């Protein structure tokens, strides 16, 4: 099995937990797909990506879009499709963007990499997602499922 869905984020930093929440739901819907959670250190992504044909990373993002907005970016053969200039800041020790860049430099990126980003409202301490992000979870799940081959 070479497809992997990774939820990135800390469930105790409010909306930062949206990645793991989406990954949980995908796991319930698609038992044939590997699902993993990376909660603090995105450098662990590099090890998870080895020999994968497709990796979908789900993460909290903050751009100028309203909270709950879902984004989808794809990396094929080393070039981003419509990737906006993401902030280098991250809630993770080594950010997802760092991990992606490092994987590219080291030639470790998966054959196909999709990042599904959910715009956050609140990344303060505590469990639970904010209302606009809860409402966006089904859309994010659909975006992930849309990347996968039908089961």
């Amino acid at each position: 099995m070479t497809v992997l869905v990774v939820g990135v984020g800390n469930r105790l930093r409010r909306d930062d937990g949206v990645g793991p929440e989406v990954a949980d739901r995908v796991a319930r819907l698609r038992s044939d797909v590997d699902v993993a959670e990376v909660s603090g250190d995105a450098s662990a992504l590099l090890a998870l990506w080895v020999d994968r044909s497709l990796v979908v990373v789900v993460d909290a993002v903050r751009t100028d879009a309203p909270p709950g907005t879902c984004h989808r970016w794809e990396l094929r053969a080393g070039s981003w499709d419509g990737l906006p200039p993401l902030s280098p800041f991250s809630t993770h020790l080594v950010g997802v963007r760092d991990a992606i860049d490092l994987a590219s430099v080291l030639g470790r990126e998966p054959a196909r990499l999709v990042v599904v980003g959910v715009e956050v409202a609140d990344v303060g301490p505590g469990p639970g997602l904010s209302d606009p992000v809860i409402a966006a979870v089904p859309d994010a799940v659909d975006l992930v499922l849309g990347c996968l081959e039908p089961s």
Partner: protein
Amino acid sequence: MRESQGRVLDVAALARVEGEGAMRVRIDGDTVIGVELDIYEPPRFFEAFLRGRGYEEPPDITARICGICPVAYQMSSCLAIEQICGVTVDGQLAALRRLLYCGEWIESHALHIYLLHAPDFLGYDGGIAMARDHRDVVERGLRLKQVGNRLMELVGGRAVHPVNVRVGGFYRLPELDELRAMVPDLQWACGAALDTISWVAGFDIPEHHGEWDLVALAGDGEYPIMGRRIVTSASPEVVPVEQFGEHVVEEHVAHSHALHASWDSRTYLVGPLARYSLNHHLLPPVAREAAAAAGLGAECRNPFASIVVRAVELLTACTEALRIVREYQPPAAPAMHVVPRAGVGHGASEAPRGLLYHRYEIDDDGRIVTATIVPPTSQNQRAIERDLWRVAQAGIALDDAALVALCEQSIRNYDPCISCATHDLDLRIVRT
């Protein structure tokens, strides 16, 4: 971002959640007149969260304080609670704790050396830029970090925020076969750590003599990770961990959310330089020899050389982990039975970035009455500022870009909890 508008050197805007900080250096003419390092750290809130919680909860709650050094929080809290309850965890359970802690040191030191600090010495903006030219080296660093992650998963249950630690020991013991299977990886890691020392020892390391006292745990026959005695460079006195609060004073300063600490009213440093200098004789022989070959004496007070000391500690952790894995025999039970009783307990351990102190008071029902947590980065804040002042003063003739780089490198010398963010420092120099 830099802009020249006069005489304030403004180092600002750290924006990662693991630590938020800013720095400002003010310059009047050719003289540095002020240095402020502002670090936001969450332990204050955690001390309040802990009140009223059960005596078995601190390892899980405090592990959440830091994503880089959760084991340190777990161990310091366990040691404090166990002291109250009259329990001493020893033998193979203590060895497993040390093994888990070695995993954290390997993870943390490998990350800092390879991805955060080395780029400063080699003239890169960060680890990714460095990886383009030094791919094999970065691969080695990532693989070392993975060895640490694997130890954390095996003993702690997962690599970040381990879930297998409890007061009295562990929930589940690792299988003997699982641990022994780590031997080849750890043998490789020992060799890679030796190569790391040789690599960083070849860097062009600026000269600087830190003017602060050194404070670390005293090793009890082995390089210190967990312990009950504290030693300092200022005095031959050995301080029981119970007396930590009699020596350390924390005070608010206007510019920072973190408390400033002093030891007997003096600026002090915890972390690799302190541990190394106060416990050099307890390094495993292979690490002591490698340190000597790298040009380190028995004491090191140059914060810029901390990358070499950290590499020596990386080898120490790999060597210790290999020894423990080889000698491991599963204990009879995964944890000792711990019955709560009212009292006060103190625990200290050596987080990758220095001594981490916990103190708890619990009542007869095992409920926490008060909690005090003193993390290493806030203890070091005053020393960091003091060095930054001197580094900026010594480099005042440099152009803005060079001075900014030197200041950032100086901050990273201490591997502060905000180190992951300091590479993204938004730094402005304003000269009036």
